[in-house]
């Protein structure tokens, strides 16, 4: 290895197993590893936060101290030790924090170069696709575009820190309203130390004029990322939000514990799409991101609608259950998921649909693909409460296995306290075998094309839920993630 950053970039980018793994050399302003109240005060002060928010953080921290870290589930191939939370550094920001760029021209060209390598040229994407981009680089936003156009419609789309300064009343009202600070171990940790994220508010009756998108990067060595996203769609508002990310190659395990909260008022609709491609570790299970995310939305108003779509191909371990609380009558919750595990990856993902209101509907489509030594678990809960008359759920849960060493597991839980409910569950497991690949080959289709055709066919219903250019990216990602896993 050389110390020349450009040569390093190229070297990383050429790594065959992780094509998009590279590191940008931006000087980070990082606190020493470790966590105590002074670190939280440091973060809060650095962000010039109001007193109530500091107290909120400290409260979460104190509760976190009393909570137990979850036990590792049974991971046959990969015995992880407990995470050392004192070895993590809880704050890192690009040096130019004080005077952040106001437009793309002011953005560090090296950062733009990084996006270019990712195949996401920021300016092009923004211009061509009409996408507003709030790029979270490390923990602080460094580029925000299309703000003016959004402002015209009254849409607020900004970094979380900015929202704390400019819209404190909204933050105070909604922060922690869907995922309470003490909801679970990682949510509590996030609440204590979150550094930044995104905030979206769509006012009454407004259809957000463009897809909102955020790219996350984890970059500084050993820095846990604690993103906080809050999206509020007021009565009859509509928004589609995209979140996607890749991470540079690292040997150290990196912890990521984000919290996403969605609030949909009467007749509002929120579509939240994710492509997750963080560094998964190497073939032997060395390195990779630990991705423990709490995502939850509440359909607060009648006829509101929340839809989660996710394509998860990265991370060493993923625990993630984007959920919907269907409180309003006639509200709808949806979950569409593709989770791919290869090498030694473990994904434990699914959803919870909590039916509280009458005539509420939920729809779950989960596609798990396991290759290499990967293990994929679907864990779902459909809960129909006593007052939820005529609630309906449809669950489809399909697994695909490639090779002999991988595994698929499903744990669907159904709890029904109202007997007018209607629940349907379908599950299947298929194997991509050499005989299927050979059959395709015999008809002229190359092994690579055969795998990607079969995998895309398998995931079709989920990919169809993604916005067009995101779907293209997702397909590319699935192909890259499965290269060399068959034949």
């Amino acid at each position, binding site marked *: 290895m050389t110390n020349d950053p450009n040569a390093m970039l190229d070297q990383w980018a050429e790594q065959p197993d992780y094509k998009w793994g590279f590191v940008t050399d931006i000087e980070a302003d990082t606190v020493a590893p470790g966590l105590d109240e002074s670190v939280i005060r440091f973060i809060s002060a650095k962000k010039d936060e109001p007193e109530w928010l500091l107290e909120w953080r400290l409260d979460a921290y104190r509760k976190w101290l009393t909570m137990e870290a979850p036990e590792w589930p049974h991971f046959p191939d990969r015995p992880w030790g407990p995470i050392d939370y004192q070895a993590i550094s809880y704050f890192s920001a690009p040096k130019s924090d004080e005077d952040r760029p106001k437009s793309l021209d002011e953005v560090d060209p090296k950062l733009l170069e990084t996006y270019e390598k990712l195949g996401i040229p920021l300016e092009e994407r923004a211009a061509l696709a009409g996408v507003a981009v709030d790029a979270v680089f490390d923990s602080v936003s460094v580029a925000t575009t299309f703000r003016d156009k959004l402002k015209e419609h009254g849409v607020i789309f900004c970094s979380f820190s900015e929202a704390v300064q400019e819209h404190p009343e909204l933050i105070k009202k909604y922060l922690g309203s869907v995922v309470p600070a003490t909801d679970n171990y990682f949510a509590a940790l996030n609440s204590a130390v979150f550094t930044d994220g995104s905030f979206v508010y769509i006012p009454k009756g407004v259809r957000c004029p463009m897809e909102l998108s955020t790219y996350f990067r984890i970059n500084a060595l050993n820095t846990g990322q604690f993103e906080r996203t809050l999206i509020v769609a007021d009565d009859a508002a509509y928004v589609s939000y995209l979140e996607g990310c890749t991470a540079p190659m690292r040997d150290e395990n990196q912890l990521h514990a984000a919290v996403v909260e969605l609030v949909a008022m009467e007749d509002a609709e929120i579509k939240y799409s994710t492509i997750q491609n963080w560094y998964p570790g190497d073939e032997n299970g060395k390195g990779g991101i630990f991705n423990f995310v709490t995502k939850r939305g509440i359909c607060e108003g009648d006829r509101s609608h929340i839809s989660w779509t996710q394509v998860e191909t990265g991370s060493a371990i993923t625990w993630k259950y984007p959920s919907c609380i269907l409180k309003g009558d006639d509200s709808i919750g949806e979950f569409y998921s593709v989770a791919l595990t290869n090498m030694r990856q473990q994904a434990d993902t699914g959803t919870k649909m909590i039916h509280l209101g009458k005539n509420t509907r939920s729809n779950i489509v989960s596609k798990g693909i396991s290759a290499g030594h990967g293990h994929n678990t679907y864990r779902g809960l459909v809960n129909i409460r006593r007052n939820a008359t005529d609630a309906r759920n449809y669950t489809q849960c399909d697994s695909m296995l490639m090779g002999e060493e991988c595994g698929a597991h499903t744990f669907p839980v159904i709890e029904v306290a109202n007997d007018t409910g209607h629940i349907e569950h379908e599950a299947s497991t298929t194997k991509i075998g*050499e005989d299927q690949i050979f059959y*395709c*080959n*015999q*008809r*002229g289709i190359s092994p690579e094309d055969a795998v990607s055709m*079969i995998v895309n*066919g398998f995931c079709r219903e989920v990919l169809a839920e993604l916005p067009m250019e995101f779907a293209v990216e997702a397909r590319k990602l699935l192909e890259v993630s499965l290269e060399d896993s068959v034949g």
Partner: protein
Amino acid sequence: MLEIKNLHASIDDTPILRGIDLTIDNGQVHSLMGPNGSGKSTLAKVLAGDEAYEVTEGSILLDGVDLLELDPHERSAAGLFMAFQYPVEIPGVTMKYFLRTAINSVRKYREQPELDAYEFLSLVKERAAMVELDTDLLDRPVNGGFSGGEKKRAEIFQMAMLEPTACILDETDSGLDIDALRIVADGVNKMRGDNRSFLVITHYQRLLSYIVPDVVHVLVDGRIVRTGGKDLALELEEHGYAPIESEHAVDA
């Protein structure tokens, strides 16, 4: 023209094909018969390039091209088609999507322009009519829940779509009802032509009364032990393989 010379192949170090010589001229239909386990499907799969088998000796040329140098998908593009004895199901991929991917892969390899959606669908319509295939099947996953007979008919339909120069049919007649048998045979007969050779693997003379072969071979224990005209099939129908097998028992 398909030329197979002294072909030996084994699976897990067990020799299955033990020296096959077989040349099928363009325009000809050869039939391959033989008892269960004699190696007929093995020969078909070795020709198609199934990597489960190891070719230990010999050569395979298709119109002068050395197939052993090519990967399975390249052999297909070079003009080789095999209708599987047991076609596999591919969930989630519709027959139409599969075929369009196949045709355009092959066309790309042959340096022909890809077919657009319109051209593809007109070709589908024409060729489906040729083998009287219900086009509703094409919106279902590849072989997904197809009946035995539907699978076989779909194989012939794919053959008609891909326009290969060497066609190997592995027991395409088994599982077909009388009408389907006639339809499949008609399809094959329509495709017979000066630039195409056929190897028809079957157990039954019945198929050969529809697709009249130029030459009939009998495979026993991985070797062709008899070659004759179409009457050979009639003879086998009457007497079975026993007389031939006993003739060659010394080799076993």
